């Protein structure tokens, strides 16, 4: 499961980047049909725009599919689709702290409720006609940061580098760096770089905002996703009706807390019976990491429950990584 989930993350992140790069003028006055795909599937864009303006664009109805799947399956979007989530995932892998700290901060924190409060504030403001959800919505946030900050910075850097290499022409005898750098530059110019370097005054502030969030991700695993993201909050609220439940078998569990260490959403997979469904983003890391095969996932129908993701077989060495401090 974990590998499928990772593949899904990579796929959607790559799709996001490809759509981003291709949203540009090629020659004729049209963009491809996928240009607005990620905004279209974003439920917060749909809901806040509708509340504020009482109208929507037809493409935005795709978000209803995401809402529907979330009501049924849970908050999968955050760990399977969201490109910003994937990026913070990667950044958080480098977070500091020793093992005990990471386990302590990996557990559910009551401040994770603040994203719901932010969501409520944004939705009330939308009803009153102030549409600022986009400032905190992860998809617009990532796109706007890429467009006004990361991409221009990359383009400028690449341009400076390849221009210097072209003009300075370093090398020894017939072996010149430009033999390698020029083809690379041509490839970049054809598929990645803008036609001219672009610059956005407001991009500095937008970039700094993103840097702040990246720093937070280095302090806590997926800080944004757990504490701030209003889309995560919206999907978490929808996830309450989900039929999928995590089951932690207390007889098998050895309190190693590896599940907490790798948990994406901060949903307390180690606390039998106290797992927080609306914080779980179905990353399946807990099941994957559990050495004793204590974690499984069930589909809870009316009256019945069926195991849909069975636990992994226990691994031979039982690790006692650290005790939970409660």
């Amino acid at each position: 499961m974990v590998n499928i989930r990772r593949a899904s993350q990579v796929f959607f992140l790559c799709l996001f980047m490809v759509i981003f790069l291709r949203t540009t003028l090629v020659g004729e006055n049209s963009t491809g049909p996928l240009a607005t795909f990620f905004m279209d599937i974003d439920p917060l864009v749909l809901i806040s725009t509708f509340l504020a303006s009482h109208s929507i664009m037809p493409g935005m109805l795709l978000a209803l599919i995401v809402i529907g799947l979330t009501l049924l399956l849970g908050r999968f979007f955050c760990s399977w689709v969201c490109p910003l989530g994937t990026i913070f995932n990667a950044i958080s892998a480098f977070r500091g702290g020793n093992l005990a700290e990471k386990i302590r901060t990996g557990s559910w924190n009551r401040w994770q409720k603040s994203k719901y409060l932010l969501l409520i504030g944004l939705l009330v403001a939308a009803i009153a006609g102030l549409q600022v959800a986009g400032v905190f919505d992860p998809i617009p946030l990532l796109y706007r940061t890429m467009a006004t900050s990361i991409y221009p910075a990359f383009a400028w850097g690449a341009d400076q580098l390849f221009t210097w290499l072209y003009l300075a022409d370093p090398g020894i005898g017939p072996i010149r760096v430009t033999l390698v750098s020029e083809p690379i530059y041509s490839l970049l110019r054809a598929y990645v770089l803008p036609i001219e370097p672009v610059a956005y005054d407001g991009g500095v502030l937008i970039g700094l905002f993103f840097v702040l969030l990246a720093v937070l991700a280095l302090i806590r695993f997926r800080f944004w996703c757990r504490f701030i993201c209003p889309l995560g909050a919206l999907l978490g609220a929808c996830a309450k009706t989900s039929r999928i439940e995590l089951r932690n078998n207390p007889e098998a569990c050895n309190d190693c807390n590896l599940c907490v260490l790798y948990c994406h959403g901060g949903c307390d997979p180690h606390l039998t019976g106290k797992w927080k469904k609306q914080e779980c983003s179905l990353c399946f890391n807990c099941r994957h990491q559990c050495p004793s095969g204590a974690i499984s996932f069930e589909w809870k129908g009316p009256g019945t429950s069926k195991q849909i993701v069975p636990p992994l077989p226990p691994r031979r060495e039982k690790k006692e990584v650290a005790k939970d401090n409660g």
Partner: protein
Amino acid sequence: MLHRLTRREFMERSAKGAAVVGLGPGVLLQEQPPKIAIASWEDPQEDPDAIKHEAQRLTEEAVKALGGMSRFISGGDSVFIKPNIGWDRLPAQAANTNPDVVATLVRLCFEAGAGKVRVSDHPCNDQRRTFVRSGIKKAAEEEGAEVFFMDRRKFRDVTIGGENLRSWPTYTDYIECDKRINVPIAKHHSLTSLTLTIKNLMGILGDPRNRLHQNLGPAMADVAKFVPSDLVVLDAIRILKANGPTGGNLQDVERRDILVAGADTVAINAYGTTLFGMAPDSLSTTREAARLGLGTIDFESLDPVRLNVS
């Protein structure tokens, strides 16, 4: 004088004969091949395919009348064709060079043995749009040309050494290629009155070229002297009579169905000026270029070959 008159009579007679037979007078023995050919289309049509055919035939015949492209291009040459691809306009709006004229020139270059034919311009509007909407990218690529966007890094300060322009950022590829073909379209222009062959060279200059307007005629003449063209082809199939050089209104476009080719950029400029009902020496670019010795304003004195093409 007598010698020249005799030659003119001879030319006129043989030109008439040549038009019927469809051969250029250059074939019928000369001491020197003609310096300027003016090709007119006999039966202009509105149909786009007919205009395409007209553009191709006019270009072929005009170049043939000069003695064929092999008079200008040698085997293995790297050729740079510089059309006007400056504006985000369709061919019918007469702001850019006719794409089929450009494509035919590409073909003729390859037929004459050119090793490489490259087509480019430094446009005023977004180059991705101008190259596509002018139709030039597609038409030239179909004939095998390398159509490319100019590389910013290749605009280098070049010592032009002119009386008015000492140095300017210029596209180095245009200077370093073997042969240069300048193929503009005839248009109205507020500052120079018209933009014809000499002003077309703006497209090989880098920024801040928007300052050149403060002394445009003399500056462009200096550039024309620094990078002389091996062949100049003036597209007057459609001319832009007002609101140039951008145009946009089809009512400002007039069909003249003429193509002029030759090596004397001044003479072609002078002739092109007359198409707008103005005296041949009206433009400051023409006068300055003539003063620098780039050619003669009195184009009739070059015994232009006039062809009716069908």
